[in-house]
């Protein structure tokens, strides 16, 4: 780092911290509005569907709603971390497939294995896959889209090689493992509890810890983050490892929920997961969004599918509806961010001339 660069940066940083306070407040409000928007959309959807078809707001139906969204929500949390740092991870579906088959075959071979160990192994495998992604992006300087498109193929190919046409069936899995996908604790399905814990832990870390704020700093301006002393490469690696580990967790839970697993488990999940994050207000260029939004996005996408089924809308409309919602969400985000930009313009112009 050259000296002129440092001296040029110092005054900028000072200006940034003063007017940054106001900017942060504006941003904060925009985020709240964004998450509130999804909550409202979700409430509207549930109420309207509930009025048209009262069965929809029965306890069993709502329970199913949450169950369906749980695994996508867990993956969307990891995806959010990655997208925050201006990267993307489209290998999550393949990682989920690998981990799902590993959990299935481990428990079929040795039904006595403790479940926490299986979960840890699944997350470990996913984390290792994520580390590979992260190292290729940071050390290898390969764009994340290229890396994870490549590992999407590689991990899926490995899953096919490993399974070699076999599949794990529910009969060979121990009941206590399958119960994980069906049982409830205090009325809340265990799968949903997993999702809630993941969302809350990661959400609070991102919100309150220095560690968490660094992800936002990197996504907002990688160069500035580096100059501020943030180890950007390490954080980007962390994001990929967490995304991989959560995809691994998702894989274990996938096996527990569905019982039958082959090499194709989780194919196409990557797009649903990215869609959930984007609908949830996570900006694809990084730096803004929250895991709460992403989890709500997953819930909204899942609810739309369920609502259309309950309303007996032609099943063929579901995908089109989700696509239209996604485009709409992106457009609304753009509208909101244009307003934000206007509010922030003063600060940016001072920064540019400083």
């Amino acid at each position: 780092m050259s000296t002129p660069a440092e001296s040029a940066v110092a005054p900028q940083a000072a200006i940034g911290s003063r007017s940054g306070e106001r900017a942060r407040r504006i941003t904060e409000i925009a985020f709240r509005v964004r998450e509130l928007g999804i909550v409202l959309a979700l409430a509207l959807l549930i109420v309207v569907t509930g009025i048209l078809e009262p069965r929809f707001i029965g306890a069993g139906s709502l329970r199913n709603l949450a169950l369906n969204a749980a695994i996508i929500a867990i993956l969307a949390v990891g995806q959010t971390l990655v997208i925050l740092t201006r990267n993307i991870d489209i290998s999550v579906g393949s990682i989920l497939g690998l981990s799902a088959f590993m959990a299935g075959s481990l428990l079929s071979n040795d039904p006595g294995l403790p479940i926490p160990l299986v979960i840890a192994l699944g997350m470990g495998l996913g984390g290792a896959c994520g580390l590979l992604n992260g190292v290729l992006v940071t050390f290898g300087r390969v764009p994340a889209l290229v890396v994870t498109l490549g590992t999407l193929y590689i991990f899926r190919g490995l899953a096919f090689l490993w399974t070699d046409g076999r599949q794990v069936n529910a009969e060979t899995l121990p009941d206590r493992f399958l119960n994980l996908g069906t049982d409830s604790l205090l009325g809340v399905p265990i799968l949903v509890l997993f999702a809630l814990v993941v969302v809350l832990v990661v959400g609070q870390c991102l919100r309150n810890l220095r560690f968490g704020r660094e992800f936002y700093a990197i996504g907002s301006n990688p160069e500035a983050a580096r100059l501020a002393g943030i180890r950007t490469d390490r954080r980007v690696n962390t994001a990929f490892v967490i995304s991989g580990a959560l995809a691994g967790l998702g894989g274990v839970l996938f096996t527990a929920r569905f019982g039958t697993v082959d090499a194709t488990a989780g194919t196409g999940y990557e797009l649903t997961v990215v869609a959930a994050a984007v609908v949830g207000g996570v900006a694809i260029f990084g730096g803004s969004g929250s895991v709460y939004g992403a989890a709500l996005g997953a819930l909204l996408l899942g609810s739309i599918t369920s609502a259309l089924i309950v309303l007996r809308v032609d099943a063929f409309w579901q995908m089109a509806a989700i696509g239209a919602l996604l485009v709409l969400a992106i457009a609304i985000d753009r509208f909101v961010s244009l307003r934000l930009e206007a509010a922030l313009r003063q600060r940016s112009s001072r920064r540019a001339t400083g």
Partner: protein
Amino acid sequence: MPPAETETVTATGRSAARELLGRWEVLVAGLLLATLIVGQSLSSEFLTADSFTTASLDLSEVALIALALALVVVAAEIDLSVASVLALSSAVMAALWNAGLPIELIMPICIGVGALCGAFNGFLVAHLGLPSLAVTIGTLALFRGLAYVVIGDSSVTDFPVAWTDRAFGNFAGTAIPNTMILFAVLAVAFGVLLHATPFGRSVFAIGANVEAARFSGLRVKRVKMWLFVMSGAVAALAGVVISLRNSTAAANVGQGFELVAVAAVVLGGVSIFGGKGSILGVVLALGLLGAIQKSLTLAEGISSYWVQIVIGTLLIGSVLGPNLVRRAREARGGSTTPRRGPWPSRRAATPNAPQH
């Protein structure tokens, strides 16, 4: 938008030979040659007219899509909705055929529908300024969904034999499928468009630096709009081709084609950040993909599941390799590229946006 990542300014001292060897297209051609040699040693059926025909037929639609996609990526955008446009085109074709329209009329309508899909993408990206990665993930679901709305899960298989034969058959008694002739024609057309017209130069300029392009008076919105329209139209053409070739039009065709096409484009040396690439590279990369697929499928004792692993590794390696070489050169202090900005050694390590 991250700067840099533009075409490397070549140092004047480099000899022409080294320049040629350093070209990405030469590397891909070398890999293709190596695959052909290895493939032949794995199976004697590999270097035959038959296997060329089947390998290139299998790749027809992805190849067509990749051509138009290459231009989109050179302009630093991406279109992930192409496989869904292909499916929508196939579904529209099925529905109109059921409605009794003549096939000669149906085909241009399908391509028109694809162009409209592309215009929709283009409007959202160019005029509303939305990120193309997010937009086209959305329209990926939307167009595929519309395909199901149009035709449901039924399919149409009774297209006129004259046309299905044309799509499946070979060109005038050779081993070259008709679809490859179509591909060759389009490849030349897109090659000329990208490399020999003002439009092509503006695509490069926009991909290299969209601000500079705008300030130098290029109509950025219009160019991007056209790129997406072309991408949609070509994807729809591919939808017509795949429907006729398989004698089946349905909404579920071509799932995942978008990722194979992106892989071909990146492997062909087109920078995912835009501003760099050539149609020749993409054509060679498509040849490489086809050769790898065919050789591993034919090879005895090797699981065809390796295809995905090899393609994934190549994809990453195609960007990782040059980066590591550059890194090693920088470490030795023999960098041939001019250093930009005050933080040269870390600049390229910036975690970049997924596209742009």
